[in-house]
């Protein structure tokens, strides 16, 4: 039995969520191959070959693969499906975009966002924003799965000695083209893999007030996140959003500042090890999941916290 892991990368570096996806593949058990589809992506391929637990890296290097367009990459993956029992991708916007297309082309049901491997056919996944957990068994010969990265401990990105093999691309489907990306640049750690996350909500009142949280984050080596309310209000860009439809995080410490704790936000952070809530409304639902709650006006508490942290 062989498992194919779809590597998310930017042609140079491998996205950290791939390491958690390999861990899920190890939990299933079997020979693990990795697909790097991109363009001028030999650096990414070498990085993938160094990941612990991968025996073979398959590279499809072509101009039409450069930007991860699903119409070009899904047929490539579907064409490889016969050789595998499982195909796994991280449940990031990259994996969520491509994998259902692969599943349809392979006439296979997809199991989205798994958080546990029960056995090679059976997996656990959250439904209803994580308010219920479903255990599902697939009757398909091929299992197509996206993996929630926070649920699996990342494997090491060094020590692997995979062989690298080239395959042809599937060609340009001629259906879509990439124009540009506007990626948020930040010196801070990535939200989904940070050890500490400091998030602000509607209570921040204004985007400029996020500066206070950024100062705290920099002292703690933390990433900055936000609730949907803060993103909808335009305080911060969409990629800050933590929640059911944004990013799912599970850091060692999650600080929710001015966040009421709507169900859809809790879905994105309630697996954090330690949760701190700062909110002036002592009835806010966020306090029901917080290990440490501070009922206070954030505009007093956050500057004080800044001072306390030195």
């Amino acid at each position, binding site marked *: 039995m062989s498992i194919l892991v779809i590597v998310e990368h930017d042609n140079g570096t491998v996205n950290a969520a791939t390491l958690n996806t390999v861990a899920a593949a190890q939990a299933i058990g079997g020979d693990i191959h990795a697909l790097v589809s991109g363009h001028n992506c030999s650096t990414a391929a070498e990085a993938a070959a160094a990941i612990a637990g991968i025996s073979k890296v398959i590279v499809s290097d072509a101009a039409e693969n450069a930007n991860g367009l*699903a119409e070009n990459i899904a047929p490539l993956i579907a064409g490889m499906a016969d050789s595998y029992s499982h195909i796994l991708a991280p449940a990031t*916007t*990259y994996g*969520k*975009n491509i*994998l*259902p*297309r692969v*599943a*349809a082309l392979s*006439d*296979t*049901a*997809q199991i*989205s*966002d798994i958080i546990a491997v029960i056995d090679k056919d059976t997996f656990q996944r959250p*439904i*209803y*924003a*994580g*308010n*219920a*957990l*479903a*255990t*599902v*068994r697939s009757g*398909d010969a091929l299992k197509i799965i996206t993996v929630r990265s926070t649920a699996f401990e990342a494997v090491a990105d060094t020590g692997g000695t995979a062989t690298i093999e080239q395959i042809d691309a599937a060609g340009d489907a001629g*259906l*879509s*083209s*990439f*124009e*540009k*990306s*506007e990626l948020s640049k930040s010196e801070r750690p990535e939200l989904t893999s940070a050890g500490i996350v400091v998030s602000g909500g509607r209570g921040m009142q204004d985007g400029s007030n996020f500066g206070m949280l950024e100062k705290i984050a920099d002292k*703690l080596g933390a990433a900055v996140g936000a609730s*949907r309310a803060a993103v909808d209000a335009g305080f911060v*860009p*969409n*990629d800050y959003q933590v929640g*059911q*439809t944004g990013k799912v995080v599970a850091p*060692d*410490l999650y600080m929710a500042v001015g966040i009421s704790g709507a*169900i859809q936000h809790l879905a994105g952070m309630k697996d954090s*090890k*330690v*949760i*701190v809530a700062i909110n002036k409304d002592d009835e806010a639902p966020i306090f*029901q999941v917080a*290990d*440490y*709650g*501070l*009922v*206070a006006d954030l505009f007093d508490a956050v500057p004080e*916290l800044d001072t*306390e*942290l030195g």
Partner: protein
Amino acid sequence: MKILVPVKRVIDYNVKVRVKPDQSGVELTNVKMAMNPFDEIAVEQALRIKEAGKADEIVLVSVGPSQSQETIRTGLAMGADRGIHIEADQDIEPLAVAKLLKAVVKKESPGLVICGKQAIDDDSNQTGQMLSALLGWAQATFASSVDLGSEKAKIIREVDGGLEHIEVVLPAVITVDLRLNEPRYASLPNIMKAKKKPIDSLSVDELSVDATPRLKVLKVEEPAARSAGIKVRSVAELVDKLKNEAKVI
């Protein structure tokens, strides 16, 4: 041009979901149901395209029990023109929904399909992409901006790192994200008007789709609850706890 918008009946997003004691699923009896919020955004986008003169008809499709017709009515009251209800009493998985929608696309020949990016019940995030694959069309997922031309559409997508601009050939499947628009409320006159708009009923068999489930749900359970925490009185106490008790900073 005709726009097809699939809509799903789900538990209202304000309702606290309860797992059934026998772990067979979640409690659906006597629970308030509503249109999936992402589908409302899809309907709204279709309406805006029609109002801009770029579409002439909006057709809603829903797969589900007979009450799904209420969900279609909600969309008709927003301003869509007619509905198609595909009757199904059992749960239909995303792949089978995509096959049913494909069959409807073949009958209706829309120039565009706009879907919600995911339904808030099973959170699968699959149907739009699967439909697009089955049709051999372009897909534009997680759209936060749609600029429709005559042969192509420019889409801004919400991705993990920020935003991505792509161009897709039409016809295409677009799946919408939260910030694409704010759906309108149906006015009372439009709610009355919607009662007269036609809804056709079809069965899964009539569309010649095998909707047999591929996945077996063995059990549905509640997640482990977090143990209740404590309230601290001051920032100093908070920092002390984080340093010396939780040891996370």
